[in-house]
C-alpha cells in the first residue's frame, strides 16, 4: 500500500522502519501540542516570560528559524532568477524546509501572542509605522507563496499524478513558478529586513537601536544579508544531514559546493558590514543616547566574548573556509563551516532578542535573567517535531531531490564498470 505512494526508482526504507523513525517525533509532537495547548488555554502565565522579559525564547527561536528558512527564497532566487541550474537538485528540499520553518514560526507566534484570535486585527487595522506590521504582512504572504510552491511538489507524488487534473495543474503551476519565486524573493527581502528592523528601531533600547538609512535601521539590511548568507548554508547542512540519515547520495557534490560558495561570499560581505555597523553603533549611536557600549558587556554571562564569537568565530572564520575552494572540496570543512555560519546567525538573533531584553535601560533596573519554562520548550519542540515529520513524509513520498534517481543509477553504473576495469587487468 505505502509502497504505491513512493516514486519508482527511489529507495525508501520499509514501512515498519519508517514508523519506528516517526514514533519519537510523534511522541515529541504530542508533548509539544500539550505544552502549547496549556499556553493557549491557561494563558501565557505558563511561560517564564514577564513584563520586563516580554519576549523570550520563542521570539529568539522564531527569528533564528526564519533566518535559516531563508534558504527557500534565496535558492529559488538563485535558480529561477539568476538561473543557477545546479541548484535544481536542492530546490524542492529548500521549499519544504522554508515551508516548515515559516509555518512553524507562525504557529509559535500564534501561541506567543496573548490573544491569538485577534491576529487578524493586524490586517484589519494595520499600523504602517510598525515593523511588526511589515513582518506580519510579509510573513503571511510569503507563507502563502511557499504553500503554493509546495503544491507542485505534492502533486508530483506517484499516486496523485495519476489523476490527470493534478498532473496538468502541477505542470501549469510549475511553468509560472518563477513569478512566485520573484514574489517570494521580494517578500522575503522585506520580512527578513523588517525582522531586523524590529529591534533596530527600538529607540528605547539603545543596545538594539541602530542608525537609520531612509526609513529603515541598519539591522534591516544586515538581517537580509545574514539570512541570505546562511539560508544556503542551512540547505547545505540539512541536505548533508538527510544524506547521512538516509545513507543515500541525493545531490551532486557540485550543488553543495555552489551553495557553500554563495554562502561564503554573502557571509563575508555581511561580516564586513556588520563590523562597520558595530563600530558606528559603539562610537556614535549608543554614545549619543548616553549609553556607554562597554557597559552592555559588563554583565555576566554576556561579556565581550559574545561580540567576538558573533563576528569572528562564527563570522569571519566560516566565511574564509567557504571562500577557499580547496577547503570547500572537503565535505568536513564545508559542512562545519556551514554549521558555524548557522550558529553565527543564531547567536546574532539571540543577542538581538535576549540580550536586548536582559540589559537594563533605567539606572535602577536590574540586569535580568530568564530561563524558559518547560511549556515554552515544549511548544518549540512541537514545531521541531512538526518540521521533522513534514520533512520525513515529504522525503518519503515526494521527490525532494530530483537527481536522486539519476545519482543512484550513476552509482550503479559506476560499480560494474569499475569491477570490469579491475577484472580486465
Amino acid at each position: 500500500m505505502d509502497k504505491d505512494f513512493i516514486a519508482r526508482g527511489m529507495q525508501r526504507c520499509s514501512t515498519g522502519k519508517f514508523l519506528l523513525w516517526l514514533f519519537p517525533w510523534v511522541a515529541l509532537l504530542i508533548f509539544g501540542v500539550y505544552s502549547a495547548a496549556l499556553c493557549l488555554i491557561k494563558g501565557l502565565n505558563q511561560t517564564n516570560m514577564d513584563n520586563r522579559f516580554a519576549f523570550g525564547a520563542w521570539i529568539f527561536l522564531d527569528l533564528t528559524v526564519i533566518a535559516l528558512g531563508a534558504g527557500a527564497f534565496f535558492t529559488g532566487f538563485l535558480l529561477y532568477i539568476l538561473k543557477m541550474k545546479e541548484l535544481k537538485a536542492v530546490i524542492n528540499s529548500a521549499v519544504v524546509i522554508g515551508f516548515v520553518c515559516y509555518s512553524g514560526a507562525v504557529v509559535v507566534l500564534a501561541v506567543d501572542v496573548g490573544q491569538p484570535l485577534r491576529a487578524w486585527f493586524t490586517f484589519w487595522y494595520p499600523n504602517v509605522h510598525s515593523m511588526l506590521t511589515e513582518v506580519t504582512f510579509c510573513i503571511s504572504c510569503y507563507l502563502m507563496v511557499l504553500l503554493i510552491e509546495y503544491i507542485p511538489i505534492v502533486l508530483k507524488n506517484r499516486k496523485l499524478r495519476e489523476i490527470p487534473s493534478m498532473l496538468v495543474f502541477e505542470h501549469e503551476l510549475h511553468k509560472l513558478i518563477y513569478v512566485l519565486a520573484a514574489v517570494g524573493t521580494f517578500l522575503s527581502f522585506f520580512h527578513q529586513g523588517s525582522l531586523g528592523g524590529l529591534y533596530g528601531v527600538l529607540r528605547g533600547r539603545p543596545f538594539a537601536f541602530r542608525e537609520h538609512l531612509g526609513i529603515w535601521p541598519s539591522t534591516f539590511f544586515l538581517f537580509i544579508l545574514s539570512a541570505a548568507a546562511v539560508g544556503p548554508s542551512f540547505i547545505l547542512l540539512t541536505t548533508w544531514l538527510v544524506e547521512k540519515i538516509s545513507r543515500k547520495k541525493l545531490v551532486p557534490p557540485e550543488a553543495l559546493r555552489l551553495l557553500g560558495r554563495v554562502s561564503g561570499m554573502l557571509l563575508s560581505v555581511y561580516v564586513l558590514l556588520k563590523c562597520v555597523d558595530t563600530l558606528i553603533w559603539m562610537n556614535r549611536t549608543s554614545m549619543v543616547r548616553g549609553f556607554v557600549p562597554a557597559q552592555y558587556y559588563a554583565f555576566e554571562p554576556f561579556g565581550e566574548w559574545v561580540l567576538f564569537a558573533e563576528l569572528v568565530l562564527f563570522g569571519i572564520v566560516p566565511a574564509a573556509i567557504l571562500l577557499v575552494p580547496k577547503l570547500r572540496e572537503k565535505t568536513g570543512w564545508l559542512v562545519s563551516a556551514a554549521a558555524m555560519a548557522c550558529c553565527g546567525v543564531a547567536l546574532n538573533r539571540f543577542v538581538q532578542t535576549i540580550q536586548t531584553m536582559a540589559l537594563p535601560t533605567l539606572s535602577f533596573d536590574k540586569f535580568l535573567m530568564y530561563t524558559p519554562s518547560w511549556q515554552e520548550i515544549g511548544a518549540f519542540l512541537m514545531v521541531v517535531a512538526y518540521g521533522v515529520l513534514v520533512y520525513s513524509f515529504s522525503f518519503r513520498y515526494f521527490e525532494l531531490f530530483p537527481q536522486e534517481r539519476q545519482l543512484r543509477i550513476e552509482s550503479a553504473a559506476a560499480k560494474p564498470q569499475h569491477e570490469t576495469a579491475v577484472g580486465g587487468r
Partner: protein
Amino acid sequence: MISENKGNKKARYGMSIDVDRCTGCGGCMVACASENNVAPANPGANDRKGLTWIRVFKVDNGQEYPNKRSVFVPMMCQQCGEETPCYLACPQQAVDVDPSTGIVGQMPERCLGCRYCMAACPYHARYFNWWDPVWPAGMEKTMNPDVAPRMRGVVEKCNFCHGRWHAARQKAAASGNRVLDPADYVPACVEACPTGAIRFGDLSDASTEVARNSKTPDSFRMLEKLGTEPKIYYMSKRQWVKEIAEAPKLTPQKEPARG
C-alpha cells in the same frame, strides 16, 4: 479620534513628581489600581508579572552605610511626546497618541498581546495580563464603571486616568464649555498622594504648576537623551537623585533596586 477635539485648544498633559517628597507609601499604586479596575494579584504573580500602572521604586545612591541614601521614584507611562516608542511599535493601532491631549492611549480591546510595545518601552511602564483577571467574589461591586476591565493576554498601562478625562470632558460639554476645568480632571494617583508630591496639569499652559515645575533647574526627565520627550518631570534638589535619570552606570553587580 483626530476630529474629536477639532477647534479645541490643544493640551499637553503632564506631571511633575517631587521625589524628595515621596514617602513610598504606595497609596498611588493602590488608588490607581482601584480607579482603573486592575485586578488583585494572581497567586502566581510576582514583581515581574504584576499589574502596576504606577510603580514606586526604591532607588539608592549605590553607596554603603553611612553614605547610603534612598529615594522613592514613582514610575508610570512617561507619555512620550516624540517618536513615541510604543505607538510606533504596535502593529494594529492599539496604541494611539491623542493630539488634543498628548496622552498616549492604550486600547486593550484592540490589543493582540504581542508585547512588542513592552519591548519598545524603555521605562517598563507597560504591563501584560498574564492571567485572567479575577476579582474576589463581591469585589466587582467596587469597580469603577468608567473604566472597562481588561482581559487576559493584553497589554495595559497608565493613560492618565482616561475615564476621569472622559467624565470631565462630558461635564464640560454638558455645561457648554470647550475646555475642561482642571479641578475636574485629576488622575487617581495625584489625588491619592498624601504629600502632594505628584502634580498634574497642562504643560502647554504656562500658568499651571506642572509647567512651572517642568522649567525649574531641579526638574529632570527619565532617559532624556533617548529623545522620547516624556511628559513626566521629576524633581529633586539632590544631584545624585537627578543622575538616576541617566543610563545605567558601569557597576555590573550593582545592588538590585527594591521597588
